[in-house]
């Protein structure tokens, strides 16, 4: 178990402040945040490449805040792999096994290289390897020292989608083998597909942490919501009218929600796929029906994102067929229909 308590560090223009979290044994912990959020600095602090200015780091109950890097039993895989270019793959892998007898070293290299699918690369120089192969070598070189925690700095950045899915599968396999992992990324889809715990970071702070379910269904603020891909997320106050709760946003958008207390402050969250668009008012069970003006139409992998101005800027996700059928175009007036149960109110 890794426990960080109130870690602060100011280093070369980057800063992390008051970072506390716990990573349990066997966790796949994701640090999610934009570039410049301080994620890499936090990883380097955990690894021991830099010492924190204040706060403590405990590993399995032992204080390692000031323990030298080489005695921490924490492995770090860098974003650009950092494979030693002047050593063959085999020597790269043996680097961490300095001082062990040759038979043990060879045996460990054999077993780790077959585990990661790189046995035929052992006698090659890194300059002859592809990005994906280098990634495997970097993982093998770090895992061979059997670290308590494996730190991964943006392991899937700069990879094409096919390589990405292969690497994801590999990381899952490593995790299933019992390896505790802390993985830094700016990609929320990556976070969702791999992590069992997520912490969202910005400007050196952890804004929210929890299970993917908690973070993705109850983002604590606009930054988190936006960063995890939720576009319709607005600060709002509940007003009861005739006992029926309405959430009113700063842009004077009034949305029926299914429950809430008068004057309660918080956020309304609507998933883009829960907004039904129509050319005229619908006679349906949706309690919310109002008009807006189409601002922008953007293609997405699964259809179109229609950006509509209606007091607030709302994003509706609809299929290609619907855009064609309704002839949706920029500047068009359109009806938005949302069920009250599809509107989530998150109190502050």
């Amino acid at each position, binding site marked *: 178990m890794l426990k960080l308590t109130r870690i602060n560090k100011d280093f070369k223009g980057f800063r992390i402040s008051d970072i506390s979290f716990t990573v349990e044994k066997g966790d796949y912990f994701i640090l999610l945040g934009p570039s410049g959020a301080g994620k890499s600095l936090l990883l380097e602090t955990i690894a021991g*490449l830099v010492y924190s200015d204040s706060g403590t780091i405990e590993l399995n109950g032992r204080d390692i805040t000031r323990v030298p*890097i*080489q005695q921490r039993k924490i*492995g770090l895989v*860098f974003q650009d792999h*950092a494979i*030693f270019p002047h050593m063959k793959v085999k020597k790269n892998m043996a*680097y961490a096994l*300095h001082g062990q007898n040759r038979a043990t070293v060879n045996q460990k290299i054999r077993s780790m290289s077959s585990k990661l699918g790189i046995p035929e690369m052992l006698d090659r120089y890194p300059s002859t390897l592809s990005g994906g192969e280098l990634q495997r070598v970097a993982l093998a070189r770090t895992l061979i*020292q059997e670290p308590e925690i494996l730190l991964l700095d943006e392991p899937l950045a700069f990879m094409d989608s096919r390589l990405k899915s292969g690497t994801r599968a590999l990381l899952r396999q490593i995790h299933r083998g019992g390896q505790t992992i802390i993985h830094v990324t700016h990609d929320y889809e990556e976070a969702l597909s791999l992590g069992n715990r997520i912490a969202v970071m910005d400007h050196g702070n952890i804004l929210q942490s929890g299970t993917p379910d908690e973070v993705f269904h109850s983002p604590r603020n606009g930054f988190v919501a936006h960063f995890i891909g939720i576009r319709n997320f607005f600060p709002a106050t509940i007003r009861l009218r005739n006992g029926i709760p309405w959430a009113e946003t700063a842009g004077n958008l009034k949305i029926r929600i299914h429950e809430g207390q008068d004057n309660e402050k918080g956020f309304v969250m609507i998933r883009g796929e829960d907004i039904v668009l129509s050319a005229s008012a619908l006679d349906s069970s949706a309690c919310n029906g109002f008009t807006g003006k189409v601002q922008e139409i953007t293609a997405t992998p699964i259809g179109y994102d229609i950006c509509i101005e209606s007091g607030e800027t709302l994003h509706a996700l609809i299929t290609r067929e619907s855009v064609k059928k309704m002839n949706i175009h920029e500047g068009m007036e359109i009806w938005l229909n949302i069920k009250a149960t599809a509107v989530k109110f998150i109190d502050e």
Partner: protein
Amino acid sequence: MKKLGLQWTFSILGGMMLLFVIAPVLGLMFSSSPASLFETAKDPEVKNSIMLTLGTSMAGTLLFALAAVPFSWILARYTFPFKKLIMAIIDLPVVIPHSAAGIAVLGFISRDTLVGRAGSAVGFNFVGHPAGIMLAMAFVSLPYLINAARDGFISVPERLEKAALTLGASPVRVFFTVSLPLAWKNILSGLILMFARGMSEFGAVIIIAYHPMITPVLIYERFTSFGLKYAQPVSVIFILVVLVFFMILRLLLSKTNKS
């Protein structure tokens, strides 16, 4: 078409400049008869001076490298107060006249100084001694090694050193297994430059030690005592020896480039 004209102009200018370098050296090469070259090559005074020149320069280069190379790593990796000033001090020997450099070194190692007294205590005097020659050579040539080695270490990504640390290596092991091998090409190039620069030094050395005579001093002595004809064969032989040496070293360097 215009571009071609420019290329020709630049090429002709460059050719003239090359000629300016090659012509005197070639002229010198053909100035002495093979017989006089052969005679000179057998002259023990010449042989000894060449051995002394190569030896002192090599010894100075290797000895100072022990401190200069690790120091270059510090210069490449860390920022600290007065770093710019220190870098300027390192470059100082390149810009000051070498006779003045010789005077400076002499003031530092002559009998009545701390260093000079330390030398006397173990029984020798730096002035007029190969050790003094070595110091004079090193003084003027050290910047070449430090600058080349520093550039070499700068070109080694710091992340590789960090990666080595996370793999459990001690900082000393990281230096010897990662930083040094990866910067080796630049360091070797710096060693060759320092060695060459030390070997060709005249101004600083002659102030520290007229005797024993290094070859540049011998050439000067033959010229002033006997005239041009007597200085030419020694010059030719020294240039040939130096060229052979450099070809070997360059070959070594190109081999490390390949690997």
